[in-house]
């Protein structure tokens, strides 16, 4: 082993971040060979040029300690770990996309309503928007579908529920809504006349629908209450249209 190789081995022995040693050796070798070439160009013989170039590289101990500081052990490994993590995260995205498919971003922003509005539905005034718990409720439309045979009809409320907590599904409504009319009659979720609530979940804006099925009596108003959340809103029907 020549003198440069011994010098190099001594320097690299100080560098604790082993993966960098090859690159450091390459750089030191290039530096050494440049220096040798310079000495040869000004007339030194081969051995003297090599010896002077080696001396110019400096003390192996000192250079080794300096390079160890520059190629920090912890920073080096942290960099490597984060690089592997990027590849693992990319693999996780790929597997998730393969498993769950591409999310419908357009539907996240403007989800389709649960109940399509038909021409025969009459618009009635919507209650004021309100906030409750993790959600802000916006009334998209409130409709009344009069049954022409005179046996009541259906009040339909389309709502949007917004939440900044994107990890939450929409508000749970199923079996949790109860309505009361101006005569104090209760419209439960499990028997006629009844109240139904549905939610279609999206991360930013969930769509909700509340249907209240009436019997022959058409009330002036209906108050819909959520049994566990405690919020309520009132729909003014005006005794039919």
């Amino acid at each position: 082993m020549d003198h440069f190789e011994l010098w190099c081995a001594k320097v690299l022995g100080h560098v604790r971040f082993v993966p960098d040693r090859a690159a450091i050796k390459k750089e030191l070798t290039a530096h050494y060979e440049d220096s040798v070439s310079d000495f040869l160009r000004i007339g030194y013989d081969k051995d003297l040029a090599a010896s002077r170039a080696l001396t110019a590289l400096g003390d192996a101990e000192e250079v080794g300690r300096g390079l160890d500081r520059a190629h920090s052990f912890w920073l080096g490994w942290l960099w490597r770990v984060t690089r592997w993590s990027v590849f693992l995260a990319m693999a996780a995205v790929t597997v998730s996309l393969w498993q769950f498919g591409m999310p419908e971003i357009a539907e996240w922003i403007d989800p389709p309503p649960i109940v399509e509005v038909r021409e025969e539905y009459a618009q009635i005034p919507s209650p004021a928007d309100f906030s409750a718990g993790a959600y802000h409720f916006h009334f998209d439309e409130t409709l009344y579908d009069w049954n022409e045979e005179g046996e009541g009809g259906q009040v339909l409320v389309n709502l949007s529920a917004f939440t900044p907590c994107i990890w939450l599904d929409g508000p749970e409504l199923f079996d949790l809504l109860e309505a009361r009319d101006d005569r104090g009659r209760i419209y439960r979720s499990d028997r006629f006349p009844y109240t139904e609530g549905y939610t279609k979940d999206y991360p930013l804006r969930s769509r909700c629908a509340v249907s209240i099925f009436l019997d022959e009596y058409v009330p002036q108003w209906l108050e819909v209450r959520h049994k566990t959340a405690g919020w309520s809103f009132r729909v003014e029907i005006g005794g039919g249209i």
Partner: protein
Amino acid sequence: MKLNRKQKIIRNILAVTALLLLTWAVQGFPALTTKQAVEWRVREYGIEEETEILYTSDWDETNRRDVIFRVGEMLGVTNVRKNAWIRTAGDIRLREAQSLTILYQTGRVDPTAILLWCSVDGAVEAECVVNIHGMLNHEVYDETYEIRAAAEGRVFRFPIVPKGTGSPNDHDELAMLWDFQNAADGQSDRDSRHTVTVAVKDVSGNVLETYQEILKRE
């Protein structure tokens, strides 16, 4: 622009964070722990009080577990499903907390157990008698299960094992157990009248307290 190693580390950490968020989004923002799944579900029910997890059963063969929790003065029960690292909580049933509170499972077609929350000091074992009674195929169906359980902290878990497994009447029994499960929500068949009686005992076998409730559609 050539980045130094520190800058590369920061870039990589940001990239990993973004990619993991994307993975989470693609999977539908799932909860990663049972506690998280229950807390989120409670918020979806519009309940803002803090959720205290009181009991979690072991995972069963269908990767489900029962969870009992407290929100305010109420006790709740739900069912959490496991799919790889994803945890999903099902429907929630809430009941006012009493010294003996019977909690019926959710998220199952047939009940596998009845849960009892007991705040009676010194209760170490309990008995539960379940009488399933109703009409099935125009005939009276009546079956009684007597189940014993040891305390798991403040909880007693009474497993319901169908008696007629393998017999021609399997379906009848399962149908009535399904009706019993619905009865907990007040949605059983009109002719059904199921009775649940529990008695908790101390270490000497003395009965400390008993409680009975009838599940019947109003």
